[in-house]
């Protein structure tokens, strides 16, 4: 707790901190990462903190848990400015701001009910047309799935 920044949510010894989550998506992040089903890890989170950048932000800390790329890509889709910090022995050993990748494989459901990806057991695939206002072009049906239609698998 170098600068005492996160004093409202207690510090963790080892694990991951997800910061700069828009307040309204904190629970969504918890749900897409299946944190509500994690039984043996300590999770603390807070929401509606003041933030210069976001107006109001949330933060999630998970002890002894590290996320893989697919999970981080998921976070990037619903909290595009989120900051991930890896904590080892109370120190931040790695920090990154999430970024939506150029291609998205398997984590978003295509909005088009007539798309073959919704009928066969295959991974969905998208080309990211816009990262700011998320716009994904399906590799199969070529239809656009946008931010408002986003449905994570």
């Amino acid at each position, binding site marked *: 707790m170098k600068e005492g920044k996160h004093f409202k949510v207690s510090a963790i010894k080892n694990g991951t901190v997800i910061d700069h989550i828009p307040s309204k998506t904190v629970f969504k992040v918890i749900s897409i990462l299946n944190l509500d089903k994690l039984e043996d890890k300590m999770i603390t989170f807070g929401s509606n903190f003041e933030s210069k950048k976001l107006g109001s932000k949330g933060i999630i800390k998970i002890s002894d848990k590290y996320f893989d790329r697919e999970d981080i890509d998921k976070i990037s889709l619903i909290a595009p400015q989120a900051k991930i910090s890896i904590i080892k022995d109370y120190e931040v050993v790695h920090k990154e701001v999430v970024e939506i990748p150029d291609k998205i494989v398997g984590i978003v459901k295509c909005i088009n009910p*007539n*798309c*073959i990806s919704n*009928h*066969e057991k295959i991974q969905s695939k998208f080309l990211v047309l816009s990262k700011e206002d998320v716009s994904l072009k399906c*590799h*199969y*049906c*070529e239809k656009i799935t946008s931010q408002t239609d986003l449905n994570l698998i």
Partner: protein
Amino acid sequence: MVSKSLVSITDCTKEEYLRILNLAKEFEANPHQNILNGKIVATLFFEPSTRTRLSFESAVLRLGGRIIGFSEASSSSSSKGETFSDTIRTVSNYCDLLIIRHPLEGTARLASELTSLPVINAGDGSNQHPTQTLLDMYSIQKTQGRLDNLTLTLVGDLKYGRTVHSLIMAMATFKPVFYFVSPEELKLPDDYRVFLKQNNIEYHETTQLPHAMKVADIVYMTRVQRERFLDPMEYEKTKNAYILKAEMLSDTKPNMKVLHPLPRINEISTDVDSTDKAYYFQQALNGVYTRQAIISHVLGLK
């Protein structure tokens, strides 16, 4: 030439369009060439489309190839619950080329990733029908002597019409001017308007046919289908506004031709058929030459 698939019109470069159109010209001059001798082509039609299937089969037979396949899902293994992926993997063992028609979107793309054989998309739901687009381009080139700098008037259902959408994307590489004529309910989707603006392509939208007819080099008619309208009254009111009649042709350019992907219902009055503006039946014949060209292109035979 390595073998490859034709799944989406947007996969093609301008050079590939021109190469296929040149091959089509060759086949028109000399339609019977035995280059598919000993080859087996599978036509897998998971939904019926007699016109498209016969056009493909005629193309294969003119090239000396043989055909296996089915013409509707009920006669195929998918009616027994086999997945699309399994059908494609299995049939791939029996042939040298797959031609696929399917009611779901993205099926041809998926098939092309499941097999090492070339795949030709003969229509995947509302998504793509690239051989139709190429035969439309061939017809445009043949009647106008060129593809560049033409005025194209597209009429009818511009919202759902996939042939129209693909034609817009493909012709955009040739600096056209577009006139879009449709009822308010069936206007071109925003995506295409954005695409045209980004590419600095001139276009006009109108609900009135007469002026857009006068300036056109090509008038491309499509069906306005009753089921596209939420309000049946609206359909009754609008359907007659987009019927092309012989009397409307008097003030058009001498080189103007009328195209239609067929089948037509009533959107082109039969009195147009005997005029020199009607080109839709030759257009269908061009489909065979164009498909011969596409088959030999993807198989690397030409």
